[in-house]
């Protein structure tokens, strides 16, 4: 998982900027970890059309299962703030409230990749 997360960090076209921004975002994150898991499970249905809930990764779209919650929050917020440039993720993240981001982080963070 950490390897996948690291890959996501690396593949951002603004990796350097995002990296710096991430540290700040994580420190001053407005979407706290420990969110509403049931809400997260419902919202996750928006993610699982592309990101496989099993944690399997086929090609470019990464696994988002089992991440540390604060890092999940930081990545979503970097899309929301448009520091990352995938328009699909910007659109998805842009409509999420802090509570919803925390809920998603809680839900996906609670899952373990199927081996």
């Amino acid at each position: 998982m950490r390897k996948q997360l690291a890959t996501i960090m690396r593949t951002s076209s603004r990796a350097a900027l995002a990296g710096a921004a991430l540290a700040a975002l994580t420190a001053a994150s407005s979407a706290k970890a420990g969110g509403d898991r049931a809400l997260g499970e419902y919202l996750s249905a928006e993610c699982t059309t592309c990101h496989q809930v099993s944690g399997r990764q086929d090609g470019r779209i990464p696994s988002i299962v089992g991440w540390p919650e604060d890092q999940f929050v930081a990545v979503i917020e970097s899309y929301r703030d448009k520091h990352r440039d995938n328009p699909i993720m910007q659109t998805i993240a842009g409509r999420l409230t802090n509570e919803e981001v925390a809920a998603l982080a809680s839900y996906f963070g609670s899952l373990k990749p199927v081996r």
Partner: protein
Amino acid sequence: MSINRRSFMVSSLALTGATVLGAPAVLGQAKPRVVVIGGGAGGTTAAKYIAKDSQGAIAVTLVEENDSYQTCFHSNLYIGGFKPYEAIVHKYDALAKNHGITLAHTRATAIDRDKKEVVLASGQRLPYDRLVVSPGIDLKYDSVPGWSKEAEEAMPHGWKPGKQTRLIKEKLDKVPNGGVIVMVAPPNPYRCPPGPYERASMFAHVLKATGRKDARIIILDPKDKFSKQGVFQPDWEKRYGTMIEWIGPGVNDGIKSVDPATNTVVTGFETYKNCAFVNVIPAQMAGAIAQQAGLAPAGGFCAIDAASMKSTVDPNIFVLGDASIAGAMPKSAFSANSQAKVAAMVIRGELTGARTFPARYTNTCWSLVDTDDAIKVGGRYEPKDGKIAEVEGFISKPGETDEVRKATQEENMSWYAGIIADMFS
């Protein structure tokens, strides 16, 4: 027709009243029953999410005639030689194994809305507490003069997966260098808005790659504009020169007739004789069963409540995907999958008292233009003033770098694996 063992067990449970749930809508009944008609992107997703999230508290039966699903999405990639046919065929078995869904591989012939029963081809009736109708589209065979059901082999549509998709590829492979392909594009609304134009791209890709550079593709369109037009057309010019020509209604002056015997297409502007092959994509309507059940007007689509995907004519029925009138959402597999999750959430709320949340929807449509060159359009949607409205959208831009287009195609391929896993595992 086959109803498997699980179906028999469900019936037995219902008879004995073995399990009583404290469900608000069906208090005192053995187990709430959901029947899903149609095993496409909407139906499989709804069946899976209802069964999975209710953890056995709802009996789910999926009625689908075929024992495998051949995806319309990415069928153009088969035509373009980017995928083998087997890669777009998927089995339903895991839905029964992993989620306890009863698979009824038969045709639903009618919906008895008064009795809340689905009538199967065998005459057997499946009672339901909630019904999900996701039958996809039917073709209007009378929408192009001279074309008909009988003519669909001579002039294939390829707009329903299976034999027709293969026929399109067979005919493409026989087009001689210098031959002319005419595509008659459909009027709105129809399944997969960018689909005809991705298909034209795939025709050009195959022709160019096999040295048939003098072949031409003429798209005769009844619409003034089409999905991703501002990106497709510059890309066509860049990739294929003048090989693809799009002719809108202002110039073609309407399709007057086609003659399948001579591969001729007559428009108000010009007559195209001895075409190498003609691809007629006709006007479309909701699948027959939706019309027969009175969920859609004759020749039309099904009105739904934007917050739930519930039919506006029957509160016990939900209509998903291509058969529905989903406001700003296009008729796509991604849309159907998204709508199914909202319906599944509402259905669980009604039948088991599960927690519900405000509806929200998403869609993205990728289209392959050439090798390592894909474009996309999509958005996020919410109920607004009784309709599903777009709240934010995006679209690929003309002139994007090769790197961006390659990444978009990689995303497209990865998404396919994702939605298939979401539907079938």
